[in-house]
Structures are given as C-alpha cells and as structure tokens.
C-alpha cells in the first residue's frame, strides 16, 4: 500500500470535521445582520479605510520572506547530507563545511552588517 494513502485518510477526516462543525454552526447559529457587525473591528472607532486588496504593508516583511527563502533552501541541503552521512566520506563533509561557511556564515554576516536583522 502506498504510504501516502493513510495520510490522505487523515487529511480527509480532519477536513470533514472542520467543514461539518463550521457548516453546523452556520445552520444552527443565529443570523441577525446589522451595519455595525459588518464593519471591521477597531476597538470602537471608525474603521480605517482599507484598499480592496488588503492595503499596503511594510516592505520589511518582504525582506524577511526573502531571507527565509535563501536560508531555508540552504538548510534543505543538509537533510540528504545528514541521512546519507555514513556513506559519503570525508570529501563531502569538507564540501558541506565549506558550503556552510560560504553561503551561511558569510551571507549571515553580510545581512547582519547591512542591518537585515533589525526589526522594530
């Protein structure tokens, strides 16, 4: 049996449960709409106008996302290395150490110095 079938079963169970609970609540729960309920919640003040596509947000999150892509992909290279470690030998160990030095520590130090790890 394909080992991914049980995974699909659990996924379907979870989704079914979530759908059922939300669906039941839609049927069972009350529905008394009014203008105030349909407004965005901002602690009682007039809600800030929002652009239809969610509005603008700080560009620094983009930086975090790019950093994540770079570093996470680099971390990904370590998994096959770790699993097949015993078969690979000294050359691969040195290669990985060099790889980490180059692309992790140098990149990390660069971003660090350029203030990429400053949040406020």
């Amino acid at each position, binding site marked *: *049996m394909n*080992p*991914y*079938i*049980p*995974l699909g*079963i*659990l*996924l379907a*169970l*979870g989704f079914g*449960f*979530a*759908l059922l*609970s*939300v669906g*039941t*609540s*839609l049927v*069972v*729960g*009350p529905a008394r709409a009014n203008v105030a309920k*349909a407004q*965005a*919640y*901002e602690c009682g003040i007039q*809600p*800030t106008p*929002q652009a239809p596509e*969610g*509005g603008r*947000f*700080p560009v620094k*999150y983009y930086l*975090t*996302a790019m*950093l*994540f892509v770079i*570093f*996470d992909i680099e*971390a*990904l290279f*370590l*998994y096959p290395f*770790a*699993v*097949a*470690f*015993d*078969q690979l030998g*000294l050359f691969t*160990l040195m290669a*990985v*150490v060099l790889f*980490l030095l180059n692309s992790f*520590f140098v990149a*990390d130090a660069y971003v660090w110095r350029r203030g990429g*790890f400053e*949040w*406020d």
Partner: protein
Amino acid sequence: MTDLVVLAAEVNPSIPRADFSDTPVWLSLVKALMIFVYLLLSVLLVIWFERRIIGRMQQRPGPNRNGPFGLLQTLADGMKSMLKEDVRPKAADAFIFTIAPLIFATMAFVGFAIIPFGGDVMMFGHRTPLQLTDLPVAALLVLAVAGVAAYGIVLAGWSSGSTYPLLGGLRATAQLISYEIAMGLAIVAVFLYAGSMSTSQIVHAQQDMWFIIPACVSFVVYVITMVGETNRLPVDLAEGEGEIVGGYFTEYSGMRFAMFFLGEYINMFTVSALATTLFLGGPAAPPGIAAIGDGMFNGGWWGVLWVTLKLWMFMFFFVWLRGSLPRTRYDQFMKFGWKFLIPVTLVWVIAVAFMRAARPEVGFFGSGVVSLGGLEISIASLIVIGFIAAIVLGGTWLWETRTEQQTKAAEAAAAIPGEVDPFAGGHPVPPLPGQRLVESPRGRGGATALAEAPARRDGTDSTHDSTTSSDKEQHRG
C-alpha cells in the same frame, strides 16, 4: 516519491522500519479514526488543564462548574461557539475568509500521521504497528504540514479586510518562517545520529540512548522554536492582545474562531509529539521502567501510555511558560531567532557532523595514531577536539567583545552628569537630552535603557556638562 523510498532503503537497511505489509486500507482508516479521536479528546482535556493550572498559578480555582472538576468546560465552550452567530465583515474576501480556518484546522491533524505510538500490535487479526503511516521523509512531513498551516494564518489575516488581522497575519508569517529555519536545522543533528528521517527508524535508533543526551543543544533549540512555531505565550506576537487585539483571528467569531483555537492546540500536540519522537525515544518506556521484567512495559500498547505521558509533560511546560513569563517584544524575538538560534544551531550541526565522522566504524579521518608524550591519541579525536576548541574559543571571543561593548556603553551612560529631579518644578517633566533621571532602586534595568539613548552621543560629551548644568538651572529656576 518511489525514488525516495528506494534511496532510504538503500541508505540504511540495517535499521528496521515499521512494517505495514499486513495493514489493509480499512485498518488504516480505523487507526486514522483512533488518532482523530485521541487528538480531539486531548484538546478537550488540555484546554481545561491549561485553565486549571493557570488558575492555580494565579491563585484562583479556574473552571470548576461543568462536570467533575470542571472537566466538561471545554465541551460547553465548544457547544456555545457552535450556537453563536458567524459574523463576516463586509470588507472581507468571502471565499478565502471561509477556507482559511478550515485549512488551519485540517492541517493540524495531518502531522500526527507519522508519530509512532508503540510497537507492533494485533488489531482485528492483523499485525500492525501503532503508527498510521511511515515515510522515508516522515519528520520533514511535520515541517511541511506546518508550512501549509501557515497559509491558514496569513490568508485569514489578509482576507479579513481589517487592520489588526493584516498586521497579525504578517507578524505570524514572519515569526513562523523565521523559527522554521532554526527548527529545521536543529533536527538535522538527530538525522545525523539516526541516519534516517523515517520516524520509526529514528525511534529504533534511540534504543540505547535517547537523543536528548547526544543532541542536547538541538533539543533546547527545538523546544524554543516549538513555542515560537505554535504562537504560544511568551511569544504569541501574532495575536498579542495588548497590541493588535487578537491578531489574525480578530474578525472571526463562532465556530470559525473555534477552528483556529482547535488548530492551535493540536499544533501544540504535534510539535510535542515530534519532540517526543526525535529526542525522547518516542513510545519507549522511561529508562527505569524499561528494565522491569525484561521490557514487559516497553512495546505494544504500552507505548501509547508513554507517548501520552511525554506529550503531557510538554503540555505542562507550555502552560508553565504561559503562567510565568511576560510577552516578549517583536524585535527582540526576531533578533533572537536570526542572530542567536540560527548561527548557534549551524555550528552545533557541524560539530555533530565532525563527532560522527570521527567514529572508528566510519573513520573519515583515518585510523592514524600519534603519540604525544607517551599518550596514544588517534588523529580523529585530535581533529574533533581541535575543531570544538576552535568553536569554543571563537564563541568566547565574540561573547567577550560583546560584553566589553555593553560594559563600555553602560559606563558611558553612567558617566553622563546631571541627574535631574523630575519633580523639581512641582510637576513631573521628562529628562531633556543630556540629562538623566534619578535612578530608582527598583527599576535599574529600565533606567539603564533610558540612559542608553544619550550614551550614543559620546562625541559631544564635552559640551554636555555646560548644557546640562544650564538646563538644570533653567529647569529649577
């Protein structure tokens, strides 16, 4: 995917994997149902548990009305949220607003599929392991599922059409992805020790010693990141109610909100279960009990008990953290992840790789032996010791430089003259640049932080004296 199966089988055939050959699909369905019920019951219990423990920590009883000891409180809360109106703001994107909580709750369940609950047992005449499924990349699956669950959060924040959820969603995403790197790196050490990513093989590799001992640094990093990944106090910055109301689920109500709630608690169980599997021997009995009666408590259905106990230990830890620590600041938390956890974990992973390479049965560094003053030392251990010594020296050097800088900054801050009495003029005024508040004996930390701002103007120190004294006179005058 078949390629990966073949690869894993070739890489480490020596460690036995869970054998699913006698498990028909309907039995998998039964096991999936069992996991599902186990998770729902655990969540019902843990919410009550958390509220009771937090109550004890805050010297109040906690929920104690519904059922014995208030055990049915969570069930009552669930029923209540089902009978509540499901409000959707007008500005929200209807479709995404609806599916975001579904994604979050669904994905929370999936991670549990690869957690081993025990050894092989007989179930309806079939011999099957107490584990829903096992993949060559099982441990990665939990990380992947957590990545999809992050979509639930970010989509919920984005689709609400409201300010606080948008901020909460962005914060949550930044936090999750930042800590996912450290988490992913921390478990590399476990894979190095086990030589596999399949959870049943990892558990088997821990027969002699749980990985919490050889991979102690990884364990500590994993525990820190797992709190960050589940958005729990003290790092629940995505929902920090003191700052952004409820974060990404501000606009959710009724059952959809309950789905986020459910997902969060199941996620707590999932990350704890992964920690149990990777570091605490999974379903293995604790060392003392494992020795009783030739391992009679170690295997079969007993594993469920041990896994549950270990999970609840982590649950108590989560609650304990929430009960004792204040919320961190967002920038501190992010800096801690990127500037401390990730570099430390990387160095640790390399150190583990070197230690593994020096084992005699692998012998990457050869089997040469040098004689130092009559002592026979193998070259391999020399290399490892040298490497670790270099890391420790480098670390101390960095640490010393940092402490030196901090001491200097503190000294410079303390050297600024002109303590000012804020109440001198009859009503309180903040200190002007170059002035310093009289330090209160209770708030020493706060006072230093305040004084740090003027400390940056070291270059203009000479002018401070005159301005400060004149300021003071003006002020007093």
